[in-house]
């Protein structure tokens, strides 16, 4: 499996949230080509190829979807969003912000930067699983990604 086959990139520092998300996607057979990264720095290294492993730079990965948390150590979700959406090579990759907070002051900013969707993670487990399932179904199966 090469990185070009990565369908879904999950960028989430909270391992519990990540586990719940991955579990729900797995349950619906949508986590086969999923990579989980723990902060923005790793995400940028992965997308732009100047990462930990120099040998993996031949072709830049183009996931079908990036699920991005906002509050993360080192490089936060807003910065990751800005970098990806301002680079012509990566700006067509769909990005969905997954945030814990209803009080986010950055929702306007995210849309201005070109986010494709903005989801508040429900506390209630049933609502959460429904949200993740619908999200995966829509972006991985229903939505037609851009070419190249």
């Amino acid at each position, binding site marked *: 499996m090469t990185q070009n086959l990565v369908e879904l990139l999950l960028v989430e520092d909270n391992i519990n949230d990540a586990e719940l998300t991955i579990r729900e996607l797995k349950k619906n057979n949508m986590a086969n080509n999923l990579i989980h990264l723990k902060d923005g720095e790793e995400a940028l290294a992965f997308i732009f190829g100047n990462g930990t492993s120099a040998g993996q730079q031949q072709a830049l990965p183009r996931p079908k979807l990036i699920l991005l948390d906002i509050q993360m150590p080192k490089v936060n979700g807003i910065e990751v969003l800005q970098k990806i959406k301002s680079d012509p090579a990566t700006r067509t990759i769909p990005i969905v912000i997954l945030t*814990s907070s209803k009080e986010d002051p950055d929702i306007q900013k995210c849309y201005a930067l070109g986010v494709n969707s903005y989801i508040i*993670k429900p506390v209630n487990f049933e609502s959460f699983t429904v949200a993740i399932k619908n999200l995966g179904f829509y972006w991985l199966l229903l939505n037609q990604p851009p070419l190249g």
Partner: protein
Amino acid sequence: MLFKDIPIRKKLMRIIFLINGVVLMVTCVTFFIYEFYIFRKTSTEKLATIGKIIAANSTAALAFDNPDDAKEILSALKTEPHIVAAALYDTAGNLFSEYFSGAGMDVLPATSEIKGYRFTRSHLEGFEPVIQETKLLGTLYLKSDLEDMYDRFRLYAFIAGAVILLSFLLAYLLSKILQKSISKPVLDLGATAKIISEQKDYSVRAVRIGNDELGSLTEAFNHMLDQIQAQNLSLSVFTQNLEQKVVEHTAQLESVNKELEAFSYSISHDLRAPLRAIIGFSAILEEDYSSKLDKEARRITSVIKKNAGTMGQLIDDLLAFSRIARNDMIKASVDNDEMVKEIIDNLAMAAQYDHAKINWVIGPLSPVYADMNTIRQVWINLISNAVKYSSKKETPHIEIGSFVKEGQIVFFIKDNGVGFDEKYRNKLFKVFQRLHSADEFEGTGVGLALVEKIVSKHMGKVWAEAVVDTGATFYFSLPAGNVHKKNVIE
């Protein structure tokens, strides 16, 4: 132009002229009257003296009946040019001899009955008895003109005119110089006041000229300016301080507001994430290990989930409550009929309670001019409360309506539920205050506090009436504003 409207300089001149004129006039008139009487007196005396001399000289002519002598005596009157006529009468009153100074014949009185001297319009005339020892021989008549007097009076008038003219000239020159001592300080003061009022420059001062009342006025004026300047200074210092304080306080408020937002954000974010984990992993435990869990274990996981869920709800409610205070209201016309219908439909869809058995009575509701989102929250909270607290009745009955009272639109939501004890009425709208246990009815104790906050932010009021186990009625009033106004952010 009225006297009070003319400039002070001209006013002073006119006053001086008037006084000068009146004084001269009184002096002249008094002098003329005095002269007139003196002249009459001396003229009469002089004519009487002449009369007495002529009468004394005429005694022989009359005694001896010699008209020629008489004529000669009378013609001696030529030396007195103002005597225009003279005559002698005998004792019987017949004309004995006559004299005229000019060519014209003057009319002589026929008889000599009148005694003494008198003034006619243009002459002085009189009769003098001609007496020898004690025997009356006849009467002398004398008539004098008043040309002397008129000559003198003409001279007097000319002199008076010249004096008046000269004195007015002098008065004009003197007053022109002397009036300045009064008018100049006044005019200077006026000019200074004008400069100050036009240029708003309170540092200008009037120059004090003397130590009189005008000097005191100038000093008082300058003193007043000192005070105005000092007050202006302290006022501007005060205003500056005030502006500075406003700027500081605004900055403080803004920073506090920012902190509050950041705080809300982290509460929302950091408290929700662990709750999601608690609920999520409890659910996973139930799902993946259901075969290994007995009935009690499943009850325990459900208690964990339920409480974590309640806490999540509490966080959301509290954040909503704090948001009301911070956020601006966007006012627009709100169709309450539409809004209430939509809310009831949504509640029915959520199906937390058996909506089919509820008996709804919904009257026509007035539209209001209010913030749509928060008013929706008020309706949601009050209607879901009515549904919740009447859910244990056989046939829940909920009535919604509105009426106008004292310029406010009052809305009410009446149910036949459990009600509440009115002695706890003051706790009803306070945060975290509940009148029922969570076992009986779920809730966080924020809903009605939120309602109260929204309504009071709209300048309205909330209150409630209730009877335990019979039902409760909740009221909220909103100002009856113009519902057709355009959207306004407050």
